[in-house]
C-alpha cells in the first residue's frame, strides 16, 4: 500500500511539526509513505470564498501530483472534504476520480483502513476535542449531535481512547463551530472571534490542559484566541497526541 502524504499549505508553512507527526505516525504503523514535493494547496480557501472557478488549476495539479498513490492521507478534515466533495469543478479524468476516492483524513484512515486498535502512545493530560465542522459533518468523523442516529462513532475519540494516561473532557457543546470558517475569519472577524471565545470557554469550564482536533486551521484560530487571552491551555493536532511516545 503506497501512501501519498498530503500536507496542506498552511500546515506546511505554519505547523511543520504536525506534518512531521503525521509522517512519523504513518511510518510507525507500517505504511509505505512518500511526500510528493510538487504539492501546494487543494484550493479550498479560494473555493469557500466563492472563487472555485479560480482554483481549477489547483484541483488538476492535485490530481497529477497524487494520482500515483493508493491512498492520499492528510491531517486536515476540511482539505480532504474539499478534494472529495468539490473537485466536481474540473473534468472527471482518471486522475481526478482516483484522488477524490483515495483521499483520507488521517484519523479516519487509521480507524477505517488500517483498523488501528492498539496505539502505543501515552499523553497524560486532560484533553478537550474540538470537532472541526468539515471533518465532523462533511466526512462523518464524529457524533453529530443534531442527528438521531445512535450508530454514529467518533473516530478521533476511538483513537484517543487508545492513548494511555489521557483524560477526555465532556463539553457542553461538543460539535459547535469555532468560527474560523476560512475567509470568514477575516471577512467577519467580530463574529468569528466571538464564536472562538465561546468555544474556548466551553473547554476552559472543564479545565482542559490541551485542546485537540483534526483540523489545524480551526486550531490556529483557537490558539490565536488563547494566546490573546494569555491562557496556558495548549493546542495540539490529534496526530501529535497519537504520535507521542510511550
Amino acid at each position, binding site marked *: 500500500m503506497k501512501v501519498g502524504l498530503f500536507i496542506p499549505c498552511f500546515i506546511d508553512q505554519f505547523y*511543520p511539526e504536525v*506534518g512531521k507527526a503525521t509522517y512519523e505516525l504513518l511510518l510507525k504503523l507500517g505504511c509505505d509513505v512518500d*511526500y510528493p514535493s510538487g504539492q501546494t494547496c487543494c484550493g479550498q480557501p479560494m473555493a469557500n470564498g*466563492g472563487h472555485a472557478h*479560480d482554483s481549477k488549476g489547483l484541483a488538476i495539479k492535485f490530481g497529477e501530483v497524487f494520482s500515483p498513490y493508493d491512498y492520499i492521507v492528510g491531517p486536515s478534515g476540511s482539505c480532504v472534504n474539499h478534494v472529495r466533495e468539490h473537485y466536481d469543478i474540473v473534468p472527471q479524468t482518471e486522475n481526478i476520480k482516483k484522488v477524490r476516492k483515495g483521499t483520507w483524513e488521517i484519523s479516519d484512515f487509521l480507524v477505517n483502513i488500517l483498523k488501528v486498535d492498539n496505539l502505543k502512545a501515552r499523553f497524560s493530560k486532560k484533553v478537550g476535542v474540538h470537532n472541526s465542522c468539515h471533518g465532523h459533518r462533511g466526512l462523518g468523523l464524529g457524533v453529530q449531535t443534531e442527528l438521531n442516529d445512535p450508530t454514529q462513532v467518533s473516530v478521533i475519540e476511538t483513537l484517543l481512547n487508545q492513548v494511555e494516561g489521557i483524560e477526555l473532557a465532556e463539553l457542553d457543546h461538543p460539535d459547535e463551530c469555532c468560527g474560523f470558517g476560512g475567509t470568514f475569519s477575516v471577512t467577519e472577524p467580530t463574529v468569528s472571534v466571538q464564536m472562538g*471565545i465561546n468555544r474556548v470557554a466551553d473547554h476552559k469550564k472543564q479545565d482542559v490542559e490541551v485542546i485537540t482536533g483534526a483540523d489545524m486551521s480551526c486550531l490556529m484560530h483557537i490558539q490565536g484566541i488563547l494566546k490573546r487571552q494569555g491562557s496556558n491551555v495548549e493546542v495540539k493536532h490529534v496526530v501529535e497526541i497519537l504520535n507521542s511516545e510511550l
Partner: protein
Amino acid sequence: MGTEKLISHADHSRNFLSNQLKASWFNKSIWYQRDKRDVATKKLDEWETLRQLASDIKAHSLSKLDEYLIEFEKNATANGIQIHWAEDDKEHNKIATDILKNHGAKKIVKSKSMLSEECELNHHLEANNIEIIESDLGERILQFSGEKPSHIVMPAIHKTKEEIGELFEEKLNTKPSNDPVYLTQAARLHLRDKFINAHASMSGVNFAIAETGSFVLCTNEGNADLGMTANSKLHIASMGIEKIIPKQEHLGVFIRMLARNATGQPITTYTSHFTKPDEGAEIHIIIVDNNRTKLLGEEKFNSALKCIRCAACMNTCPVFKNSGGHSYNFVIPGPIGAILAPVHDIKKYADMPFASTLCGSCTNVCPVKINIHEQLYDWRQVISQKKSAFTFKGMIMKGAAFVLENTWIYDTSGKMGMFFIKHFRWLVTHATPWGEGRELPDIPKESFKDWYKKNHS
C-alpha cells in the same frame, strides 16, 4: 427591487456584539431552543425516517407544483373558498386591499405570516387607511416598537422581558413589571378588544392540501382561530406557492415535525384546519409567487422551496446565535434566509451567503433535508462570478491561485510570507482583521517541505 447600499452583515454583527451582556443572553436563549429541539427529536426513534419522508413529499410536490396548485384551486373553490393569484408582492397587497375595501373592512387582525412581512403588507394597508393589528404576541410587541421580526418563529426573541415591560408601560399603560404572566395577560386583554371589534381577519398558511382544498395553520396562541371566529365574516389567507402538499395523509408527517423541530413541543398548541367558510362568510386565499417560480427554475437551489419555516437552522446556526436576526438584511434571517434572499436580489443580498462558516449544522437539523450549507457554498460561487474579476478580493484569489499552481513560486513566496510575518508581526497583528481578538501563530524555522527535503534527499 432597489439595490440601495445596506449595512453589511459584518457591521451589523459588530454592533450586536458590542453589547456583550445582551449578546450573551441572546446566545443562551437560542441555545435553549436548540437544546429543547434535540430532546424532542430524539424521543422519536423514527426521526431520521420522518426527515427523509418529509423531504421526499416536498420534493415530489415541487416537481408537480403546477398540477397540485390547480387541483388545490379546484377543490378549494368547490368548497366555497375564493382563490386569487398574485405574481409578486405588489399584486398580493393590491388584491388584499381591494377585498378589504369591497367589504368596507377598516380594522383587521392578522396572525403571524412571514409572507405578509415579505410583501410589507402592513405598510400598504396603513397607507390605505386600514388598521392592521398583529395578533401574535411577538409580532404585536414589534408593531409597538416599530421593529421587524428577528426570527421567523419567535419574532421578538431579541427583546428581553425588561424591554417588553417598558414598552407595555408606554403602549398599554401597564404597571412597571417584567413578569411575563402579567405582561402576557395585559396583551391578551388588549388583543381581545381588537379581535371583537375587527372587521376581518388575515393569516398566512402553513400547509395547503391539494386533495381537499383545505389549509392548515399552526399557532401556539390560538390567535388565528380567534381572528376567524370572533368575526367570521371575512378571512384572507396569504400563501406562497410552495405551501402545497398533495394529500391529507401527508399532513401528519409535517405536523409531527414542525413544532418538535421549532420549539421542542410535540405539536403546536393549535393546529387549525380550514375547509369552507361559514354561512354568509367569505374566505379568500391569495396564492403568491414573488420569485418562487424563478427559484424553482434554479436546479442547484430550488430545494430551498421545501422549507416549512421551522427556524431550526437559525436556532442551531452559530453565526445567528452571535449576530442576531437583525444582522441579516432579508426578511428571513439565518441560513435559510441566506439561500432564499439572493433569488430576490443578488446584489442587495450578496453578503448573506458569506455570513456563515459553512459548518453544516443547518443541514443536519433541517426537517426536509435541504442541503443548506452546500447551497451557501454554491451561491458564493454564483455571486463571485457575477462580480467583476477586478474586485480586490477577486484579484487576491486569482493571485493566490497563480502562486499555488506553481510549486516553485509557492515555495519561494511561502518563505517570503513567513519572513514578513516574522519581522512585521506587529503590523500583521494590528492592521489586519486576524489581529482583532487573535494572535498569530509562531513562525517555525523551516517549512515541512524543507524539513522533508533535508532528511530525505
